[in-house]
Structures are given as C-alpha cells and as structure tokens.
C-alpha cells in the first residue's frame, strides 16, 4: 500500500506531459526512415537532465515505445522500415497499401502495437520482482560472471562475426576504464585531460555512437540517386482497428509472448522478434498462402511482437542492470544520469520508483495509441520533410544536448570523434550497440572482479565454485562456442 502511495505521488502533471511528449517525439523520430529507436531515445536523453527521475525516464520510455511503433509508418507507406523492428511489417502492410488499404494497415499496426505493448507490460510487472528477488542474493562473483555472460550473448548475437562483435564490446569496456580509478584514485588513460577525470561522458558516447554515426551513414550515401519517397497511397479509414486485432486474440497473444520473450534475451532486438513472430503466425494460419500478399494477420504479428519486445527488453535492464540492446543501453544511461543504478537493489530500496517506471510504461503505451490515432496523418506528412533541413538540425540537437550536461565543449568534440568511430564500426559490420553495452557492463565487471578478489583474499576459485557464478560462466562459454560454430559454418559456406 505504501509503495502504491509512493508510486502515485511520483506522477505529477509534468511527468504525464513528459510521457506524452516522449511518445509523440518518439513516433515522429521513428517514422523517419533510418532513425532507430536507440537514436530517438539518445536524442531526447539530454532533455531529461533537468527533469525529475519519473518524468525523465517516462519521457524516454515514451520515446522508446513511440519510435518502435512509428517505424511502421514508412514501412507501410514506402516499403522502407523506419526501425529494424518494422522489417516484417513491410511484408504484408506494403502490399495492403498498394492495394488501396493503407489506412487499414496503419490502423491495424496502431492497434496491434498497443495490445502487444500492454501484454508485455503485464509480463514485465509480474516477472520483474521475481527475478529481482533472486538477483538480490547475487554477490560480486555472480555479478562479474553475469556481466561476462551479458557481454558474450550480445557480441555473439549482435553481428555476423564473433571477432568483430568481441572487438566492439571490448572497445566499450576499454572506454569504461577511462578516468580516475575508483579504488586507488590513479588516473587511467586521461592524457592529462581534465574533462576525462570522471571518465568519458556517457551521453557523448551514446549520442556519438547512435546519432552522429547515423548522420555520417546518411551523408555517405547523399550523392547516390535514390528512388523518390513519394507517399501516394490514399489513406482509407486510418483509425485503430482494435476490434479486428482482438478478434485475432490468439494470434496477438502468441506473437506478443514471442516478442516479450525475444526482447528479454540480451542482443536479440526487435527485428528478430518481429520476424520470428511473423514466421510463427504464418505457420499457424489457416491461409499461409496469403502471407506476403497483404494478409492483415502478418501486420498484427509483426507489430504486436515488435512493441512487446520493448517490455521484454526492460526485464533484464531493470532487474539485473543488463541492457538487452541499443535502446535499453541508452535508457540505462538515462537512469544513470539521474543517479539511479538499475539492478535488483533498486526493487528493494526504491520500489516506488520501480513501480513508477512500470506505470510510466503502461501510460506510454496508452498515449501511443491516442497520439497515433489523432496524429496518423501528421506522421505520414512527416515523411516529406527534406533531408537537407533534417541533417543539420539533428546535429545541432546532438551537440547542444551533449554540451548541456557538463557545459564542456570537450564532450562535444568527443561526441564527434566517437561518431566517426561508430560510423566506421557500423559500416564494416562491427556494430555500435556492443560498444555501449561494453561500456556499461565493463564498469560492472571490473568493480565486481576487484571487489570479489578482495573478499576472497585474492583467490579466483570462488568465481568458479559458487554455483550461480559458475552457471553464468558456463552459459557464456556455451554462447561463445555456439557463435564460433556459426562463424565456422558461415565461412565454410
């Protein structure tokens, strides 16, 4: 009851407005082809600095849900997924749009995104406290092993090459060591730069790697001819088709569960969730031959699962402090900027805040439904915003946002440098998400390794003899071997 009152007290009109604004801006950014959910959340991160924790995290959650849902707009109208999670949406929604049913496809997408998000929110609320209660028993050895497992899952699932994934993850871990050492105070890799005393700015890393690198990717292709982004599909009755989605409740429930499950696995992401759900939907459908030719079930499967992925991704993030993919890594950054360390102790010490985050996530899904309902035509028009105005505007937003945290121009130059690094890593298939995840998990791994060794009098054995720690390390090894096998098979083929 006390928690309920605490949770209720956290919600001020500012918090509600922040969730609404985040959802609106998230849909807006997600609707722009090429801007991922992680980039949308990263772009809005600086704004949260001046807000209270619930308003700040509510804005980011709104942006995350909104961006994933907004990605369906160009997927439906242009056959161009706005975010990777919308890839499977193009399979049936675009044929529907070309057959004069663009409004229906948009309406189905809005309604199934909402239902998928609500189902995953319910699972998040039910499952998270249980996982957190188990995780509360973890010591330094378990946390060290868990961070190694998290990193191993991400590097093995994030890219095609294990070597490249490992390099990207290690680059992030190396960045986490910059600054004054927490135990001895020794300066590490600061190169006499005062701005690096407290380590690299998390925001500069996030915005540089996700937003600036994406700008550079767009600029590289700027001189290439591209097919016109002409939106000429008439919008027939573009309103949420909740009744139709609920009529397919078995399908919606199944694909939402797939989305939540895949989302909870670190490194899996929205594109895997929606493609797996789409495949499942096709298998159980009575008319599988209609899939790929404009089947409404295909749109429901893809959109319910990619939004359900969001709730799933929040489970390891909140309970273990392990970011599942790019956007949750940015969300952890948002929490850390607010001085909150996600993990099981959060459920113990700040349960009101945790439940506040749950409620904010539920509200973000509800607001997403209404914002998309009323704003559908606006978001469609947004596809016509010229690139020559958008690119400089995004850069200014990145630069000013990063500067605003420490009022230090060094952070902005660092953001540009990391943007170049991120562009090169993404361009040659290393990926940028493992870098940010490595940065977050690197600190966790080193702190707990050193703490553990001190506790165990310098002995490494407890890391291998404590059952949970050993289980995590064995699992990490299994992922490493699986990834090696996959790489070997790919090379052989």
């Amino acid at each position, binding site marked *: 009851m006390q928690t309920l009152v605490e949770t209720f007290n956290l919600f001020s009109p500012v918090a509600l407005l922040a969730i609404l604004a985040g959802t609106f801006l998230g849909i807006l950014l997600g609707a722009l082809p090429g801007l991922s959910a992680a980039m949308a959340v990263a772009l809005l991160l600086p704004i949260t600095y001046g807000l209270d924790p619930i308003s700040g995290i509510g804005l980011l959650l709104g942006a995350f849900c909104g961006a994933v849902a907004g990605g369906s707009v160009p997927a439906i109208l242009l056959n161009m997924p706005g975010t990777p999670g919308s890839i499977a949406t193009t399979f049936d929604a675009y044929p529907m749009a070309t057959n004069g049913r663009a409004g229906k496809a948009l309406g189905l997408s809005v309604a199934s995104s909402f239902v998928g998000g609500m189902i995953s929110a319910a699972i998040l609320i039910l499952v998270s406290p249980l996982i957190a209660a188990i995780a509360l028993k973890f010591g330094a050895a378990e946390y060290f092993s868990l961070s190694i497992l998290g990193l191993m899952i991400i590097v093995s699932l994030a890219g095609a090459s294990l070597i490249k994934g490992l390099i990207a993850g290690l680059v992030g871990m*190396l960045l986490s060591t910059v600054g004054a050492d927490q*135990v001895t105070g020794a300066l590490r890799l600061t190169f006499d730069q005062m701005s690096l005393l407290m380590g690299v700015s998390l925001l500069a890393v996030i915005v540089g790697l996700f937003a600036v690198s994406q700008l550079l990717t767009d*600029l590289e292709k700027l001189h290439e001819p591209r097919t016109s982004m002409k939106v000429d599909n008439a919008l027939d009755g573009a309103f949420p088709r909740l009744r139709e989605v609920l009529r397919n409740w078995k399908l919606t429930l199944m694909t939402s569960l797939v989305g939540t499950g895949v989302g909870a696995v670190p490194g899996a992401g929205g594109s895997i969730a929606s493609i797996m759900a789409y495949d499942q939907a096709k298998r159980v459908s009575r008319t599988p031959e209609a899939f790929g030719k404009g089947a409404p079930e295909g749109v429901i499967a893809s959109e319910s699962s990619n939004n359900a992925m969001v709730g799933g991704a929040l489970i390891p993030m909140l309970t273990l402090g392990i970011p599942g993919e790019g956007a949750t890594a940015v969300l952890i950054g948002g929490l850390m900027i607010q001085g909150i360390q996600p993990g099981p102790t959060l459920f113990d010490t700040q349960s009101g805040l945790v439940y506040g985050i749950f409620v904010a996530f539920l509200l973000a899904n509800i607001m997403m439904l209404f914002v998309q309902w009323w704003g559908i035509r606006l978001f469609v028009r947004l596809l016509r915003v010229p690139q020559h105005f958008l*690119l400089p505007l995004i850069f200014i937003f990145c630069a000013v946002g990063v500067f605003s945290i420490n009022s230090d*121009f060094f952070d902005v130059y660092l953001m540009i440098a990391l943007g170049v690094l991120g562009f090169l890593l993404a361009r040659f298939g290393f990926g940028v998400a493992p870098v940010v995840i490595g940065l977050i998990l690197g600190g966790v791994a080193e702190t707990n390794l050193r*703490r553990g060794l001190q506790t165990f009098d310098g002995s490494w054995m407890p890391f291998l003899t404590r059952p949970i720690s050993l289980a995590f390390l064995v699992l990490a090894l299994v992922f490493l071997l699986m990834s090696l096998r996959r790489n070997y098979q790919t090379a052989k083929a």
Partner: protein
Amino acid sequence: MNASIQETCLSLLLAAVAAGLAVTAMGIPGSAHGSIAPSTFPTVIAWLIAALSVLNALVTLRRASGEGQMKAMSARGVGNIVAFLAVSTAYVWLIGQAGFVVATLAYLLIMPVFVCVVSPRHRVRLSRVSFWATLVVFAAIATGAIYGVFVELLNVRF
C-alpha cells in the same frame, strides 16, 4: 580500394591504437591491494583488442578475393563526410567564439546548401527562389526554437 582492403586498414589502425593504449595503460601507477592493480583491466582489454584486430585483418585479407558482399566506401562518400565533419567542428568552435545564436544561424544557412550541392536529387532546388526564402525562415525559426528550449527552458549556458 575494395571493401576488404578498407576493412583491413581499419582493423590495423584499431590494432595500432589499441597497442599504443595498452603500453600507456601498463604505466598506470598503483598496486593490487589483494585484488588486481588499476592498470590490469585496461592493459588486458587493450591487448585483446589489438590481437583480435590483427586477427580480423588476417581473416578479411584471406577472403579479399572480391567475393565480399560489402560495398566499398567511395571517395565521394568520404569527401561528403569529411566536409560535414569540418563544417560541424567549426560550428562547435564558433559557438564558443561568437555565441550560440550567431553560430547556429550561420550553420543552418550553410549546411542545407552543402547538402543540396552534394546531393544530385536536391541540387535542382538551389535554382529556386522559394528554396532560399524557406532556408532563411527555417534557419531563423529553428535557431529561435532550439535557443528557447535549451537556453530559456533548460537553462543551458554557452
């Protein structure tokens, strides 16, 4: 230069930088205190990056016979990026010298023109009077809006 050679160059550059950082990290003072020294973690990670980068360079060179699916970066693409980075870095420097409003207004007038010059599908706009009018209005409104949000609402001081 094909994509494989470009990737090899990037891997070798990463290896060189990581090796340099590893040597620097080895000089970090401080003892282990019953645990590991402050230099251990960064040194081990940097050497691992260097080793894996060399390994990646070798793997990439082995399959460099032209079957690579990745498209190489073109000289024009690199040129676009370098020019954008030069103008954007100058913009950040200019904020400190001339203030946010002057620098942002100048950036928002220059950068859209740069994008149109570089991009064939946008270049045609440069000959239209409406483009220039829209550009001036856009630069003024966007500068004012960003100034309003960050300086007035969020109290950011440049």
